């Protein structure tokens, strides 16, 4: 067994996560980054090594699962083992200036991004999520995919609506509205061939500032909003049970539960499936109780079902 050694302090390596469903343009974006690195030594961890289209004269060395470019960038394969790939990057000498992880099409980018907040030698850059303007609506309508895709969108700091050249302007407006509904804080950019600003891609994300969910007047017609509030601080287990299955048509649910003594708080989030519930710090001004806000496709949400379930929660409280 090897001895556990504290790692020497170093400047943390900024890490950006690039995600998006199949065909959204992740590989194109990686190629774009590598071509326009402009002096930054970027290290990219990719799933699909074969599709990194780099001109042969730019490649300095190819060694097993890594590709060294003449401009100082490196491209390495994750090869199914993110632990190993990430350890190798951190052991690289010299360290690259920036790390970019290309997530797989079904990855939950938030989970990968979290490692940059956990690992002292990494610092969190943006979660960049690409959406294919041509297929986004169809993806979100597919029962097998809707949750995966909407969760990816919800996790983004920067949303790139890609392939805008092949979609009409008014459709783009609607899509942009849809993205805003699924993620109220991310920057949204329309791009073609994934050609986004490299500065913005590699920038540290602005702290998330909540936008008002109702601030979407132009798209009100497509969506409706539902909210619920109770000053009773139900036990988190009961709330979890009440929300275990959410009615169809719901696109996004957000909520906050603060305990009666204001000692604990939980954040509730769902993009259609069972909500994820996580402990969080008690917001300074928060009062005890449960607050929920949801958006849904217009006329698709069974409001009564939701109300009934939460009313039952109140009943239980009385017993």
């Amino acid at each position, binding site marked *: 067994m090897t001895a556990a050694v504290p790692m020497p302090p170093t400047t943390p390596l900024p890490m950006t996560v690039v995600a998006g469903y*199949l065909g959204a343009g992740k590989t194109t974006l990686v190629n774009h980054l590598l071509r326009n690195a402009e002096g930054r030594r970027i290290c990219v961890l990719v799933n699909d090594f074969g599709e990194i289209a780099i001109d042969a004269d730019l490649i300095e060395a190819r060694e097993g699962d890594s590709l060294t470019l003449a401009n100082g960038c490196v491209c390495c394969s994750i090869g199914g083992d993110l632990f190993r790939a990430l350890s190798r990057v951190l052991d690289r000498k010299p360290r690259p200036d920036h790390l970019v992880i290309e997530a797989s099409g079904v990855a939950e980018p938030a989970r990968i991004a979290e490692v940059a907040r956990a690992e002292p030698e990494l610092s969190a850059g943006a979660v960049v999520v690409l959406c294919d303007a041509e297929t986004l609506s169809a993806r979100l309508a597919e029962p097998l995919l809707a949750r995966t895709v909407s969760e990816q969108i919800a996790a983004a700091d920067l949303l790139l609506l890609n392939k805008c050249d092949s979609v009409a302007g008014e459709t783009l407006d609607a899509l942009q509205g849809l993205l805003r509904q699924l993620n109220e804080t991310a920057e949204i950019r329309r791009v073609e061939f994934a050609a986004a600003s490299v500065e913005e891609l590699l920038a540290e994300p602005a702290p998330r500032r909540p936008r008002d969910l109702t601030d979407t007047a132009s798209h009100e017609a497509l969506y409706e909003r539902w909210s619920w509030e109770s000053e009773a601080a139900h036990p988190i287990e009961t709330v979890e049970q009440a929300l275990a299955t959410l009615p169809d048509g719901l696109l996004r649910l957000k909520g906050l539960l603060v305990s009666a003594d204001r*000692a604990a708080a939980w954040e509730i989030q769902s993009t259609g499936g069972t909500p994820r519930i996580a402990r969080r710090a008690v917001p300074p001004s928060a009062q005890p109780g449960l607050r929920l806000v949801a958006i849904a496709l217009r006329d698709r949400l069974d409001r009564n079902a939701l109300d009934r379930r939460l009313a039952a929660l109140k009943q239980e409280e009385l017993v």
Partner: protein
Amino acid sequence: MSDTKVFSARKIVTMDPRRPVASHVAVRDGRILAVGDAEEVSAWGDFPLDSRFAEMVLLPGFVEGHAHVLAGAMWRYLYIGYHDRVDPAGITHPGLTDIGQAIEKLRQAEAALTDARTPLIAWGFDPIFLTGERLNRHHLDGVSASRPIAVVHSNFHLLTANTAALSLAQYGPGTQIVGVALEEDGHPHGELREFAAMFPVMRRLGIDFGALARSEDGVRAYGEVARRCGVTTVTDLIADLEDGDVRQLLEITGEASYPVRLVPALNGHAAPAYETAERALALKHLSTDKLRLGAVKLLTDGSIQGFTAQVNWPGYFKGPDHGIWNMPPEQLYDTVDNLNGEDIQLHIHVNGDKAIDMALDALERTLGHHRRPDHRHTLQHCQMAGPAQFRRMQALGVGVNLFANHLYYFGDQHRDITLGPDRAQGIDGCASALAHGVPLAIHSDAPVTPMGPLITAWCAVNRQTASGDILGEAERISVEQALHAVTLGAAHSLKMDGEVGSIEVGKRADFAVLEEDPTACAPEALKDVAVHSTVLGGEVTAP
């Protein structure tokens, strides 16, 4: 021929219906020359008789169709699980049934360490079986305040660390990271969940499961774990198989003393489908009699007990649905089509019924235009398969390798928490598979549950849970059917039924040597039949 010898036994159960029982088996060049009684076998000539097994019962060497090298490699660390386990040296580590026992075992191991900086790492821990307070850093701080300690949970998705290990990762009061559990006062609790939260601690303590699975010691320990439970052919059902790994496997399995035939399946998620196909075809040609390469493993969903399996309506009984896909559905269709098109055998991990539907859809599509009459594609685990899905498997010629050990190890949890009392009755439906004519194997998925084909067979026969409940009497199978599933059935799932899995002329002379006759004992006692030793290619194996 001078190297021919004859083994005699109290009884030889051949699994060959043409000659189900014998007393003598002649072996030449590692293969079975003759099976029968003394007279029939001596008709081939007067060969030396090896009667050391005269009081024993011989079966075909068992075939473990779904397990992982980590089942051997993890023994580098301290085992503190709830159930008994046998280590590569043959020592039984009794299960620890409360936290106090686990702490005591950690304390003893800590006291035995000399270098103050060596971390103490334990594995196999599973809070799902324990009542009372959840293991936390305070328990582990009591073992040592200065030495980093990490307890890896049995599912490998969680670990609990002491304060010394948490500090190495700079986790402390005020840490706000998803997966770093907190106490009421905001200090880390010690439990770290999933990759992101675990990474900094694992990296600093040198815990690397991938490296462990490809380590020479790990591969050797794995051979011993298999040998101890009568297994002579064992899978490693997902492996990266890089050039260096393959060289090492060829070397180790090439040694006469390595006690098993190893069948690794290539990880189908590490490269695009066409590259995986090329690699699998190239590997196939490197196969030897002791290392069988060429199959590919694909994963669809997660696990039922982890709530990451993809479950059809009405979903999980209690608890949240965190169903995941390991590959986008259309990429799975594409990959399955590519690999089947190249005539590569697929082992597809499916747990939930929604994932089973998807895998069957993928196979149905590809088999429509790439007809492969004897493809042997196998659904692995396949725990929630129902009658309609078994009918589809039969129609498509797809085999199934059911996770029978789950009935005992997680059956109570499936009944009470994940699936509910009704659906839990049907999980790992061995009788349904056979009734629908689907080729059946059963497995342990070691290290998830302990390897032991007789235990696996016992699970399928009795369907008894850890608490003593019977889960789905209608899905019980007979002892003979269960023994078939851990020999010929599993060999069939690996396309090796022509060479192992039964004791018949021409096949490899691989035997499990048992102290009792599993076909004569009470079905409830099947798991207690002791394994004496094994024979591989006619040679008695030794540690």
